[in-house]
């Protein structure tokens, strides 16, 4: 036991790091997939950043809660895109934490998307996207695919 003590910390720290990574993949394993419609302010240019900032049309609109931290769930509308379902100021199990102000819901983890090297050419110069988002039963979200929508 005495000999083990110095090694406790590296082990704990590796477990914490691995735990976070597993948590992220668990969102995909156990989560439900929603398709969101998103736009960015300007066409994506990989020269400036490997991330893209996204806005969601379906998050706009008046909600029946006080501004500030809110918790939301999602549902799929008739047009096939997801939108906000339940909104509450009190935390509940399965709710995703978000901010509500200026009549709009903001979800930190969805507001930017890091584009992998292999998708850069596909995304370059595009503004309108479909985003595949996994939502875990415990409320974590993970955007995992970005597809440009062809302008009709």
């Amino acid at each position: 036991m005495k000999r083990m003590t110095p090694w406790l910390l590296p082990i704990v720290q590796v477990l914490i790091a691995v735990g976070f990574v597993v948590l992220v993949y668990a969102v995909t394993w156990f989560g439900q997939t929603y398709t969101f419609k998103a736009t960015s302010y300007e066409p994506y240019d990989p020269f400036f950043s490997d991330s893209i900032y996204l806005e969601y049309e379906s998050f706009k609109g008046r909600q029946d809660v006080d501004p500030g931290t809110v918790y939301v769930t999602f549902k799929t509308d008739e047009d096939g895109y997801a939108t906000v379902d339940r909104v509450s100021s009190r935390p509940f199990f399965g709710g995703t934490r978000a901010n509500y102000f200026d009549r709009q819901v903001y979800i930190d983890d969805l507001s930017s998307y890091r584009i992998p090297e292999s998708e850069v050419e596909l995304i370059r110069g595009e503004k309108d996207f479909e985003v595949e988002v996994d939502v875990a039963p415990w409320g974590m979200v993970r955007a995992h695919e970005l597809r440009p929508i062809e302008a009709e």
Partner: protein
Amino acid sequence: MDEMTGQRLVDYENERLAGREKREHKPPILVIIGSILLALSLFSFVAANWQAIPDLLKVSIFLIFMVAMYVTAEQLQTRAPRYVTLFRVLGIVFFVATMIVIFTTYNLSSQIPLLFWLMFGVAVLHKLIYQHPIFTFIAALAAFLANTNSFQGVGLTLIILGFIITWAWFHYVDNEIDRIFAWFSFYGLLITVGQYANYEGRFWPIWALVILHVLFLIYRERAQWNYLYLFVAALLSIGYLINATEGWLSQRQPSVLEATVLSALLVAVYLLHRRPELVWVSLLAVVPFSLFEDSGILLAIFLEAVALGYLIWQDHNRKPIVLAFIYFLLVQMTIYFIYVWDRLDISLFFLIGALIVFALSLALWWRNRTRGDVRT
């Protein structure tokens, strides 16, 4: 010079020669430069291809570096004990770097409060296991970050986790500075609990201070952090004085019931513990009632009297009066900026202040002198 001395001289020369040879065994300068260049090329290769590296490999690279730091620290234990702590600190640094890589790669910005609490816990574990003062500093930094980042929308699990870590720090680390930081972490957590419970009134900072007196019930023998309560009480009194006339304090009338209960508790807590210094903390009992009066004059007069009384009391008991004096001055400044700014000429105000201070120091000096006379 006899044979013995000659032999010793020969031995000495041999030893010196051996020592010199050993020193010349250092790696030649070209090898050092070469390995530095190699390391640089490796680093730049990784950096240039960073985006192309698979996510899991990125995390693994950092984790391997982190473990390597701890292994190096253990290896150096006997050979170069001076550098052991350095490598352990580097271990924490690489842990933080790993977490930053994970958080940016997987876009986990909403989990940042959890990350800060885990960092805090890891720092406390370092302090517990390795017992080096630098880890106190790291733990305090992590505690500050964790507390300030969890004001908004923190969950119950995080609050419980925070309490467990803070308590472990407070209970198991037998060091006064650690206790002071842990105490502040407790206070910050209690403030966060108020946020979580959606407390709407204005007295939560005082409630948190009252609740913290529970620590005295469990740790009876540790009287040395009485002054923390005094310090926070002083800060609170000035904070309430500043806000008494404006902003969030005067928008809504406080509840009479709450003010009564809070005041009674403050006095009860003092009566329960009977620590002489804490009588000054229990004077906060007046604050809830003074807020019913919008102008704040009552609070100003009261705090003025308390500041003066504390100063005289400290001197009477032959205790250091520096802090009491600073508090007295702070109350003067606050009252000046809030109440007298546009009503009194600035020089007149400072003249009166100076006269008060002069009179005070004269009185103290006079008393000390006469007391000294009696003793001799």
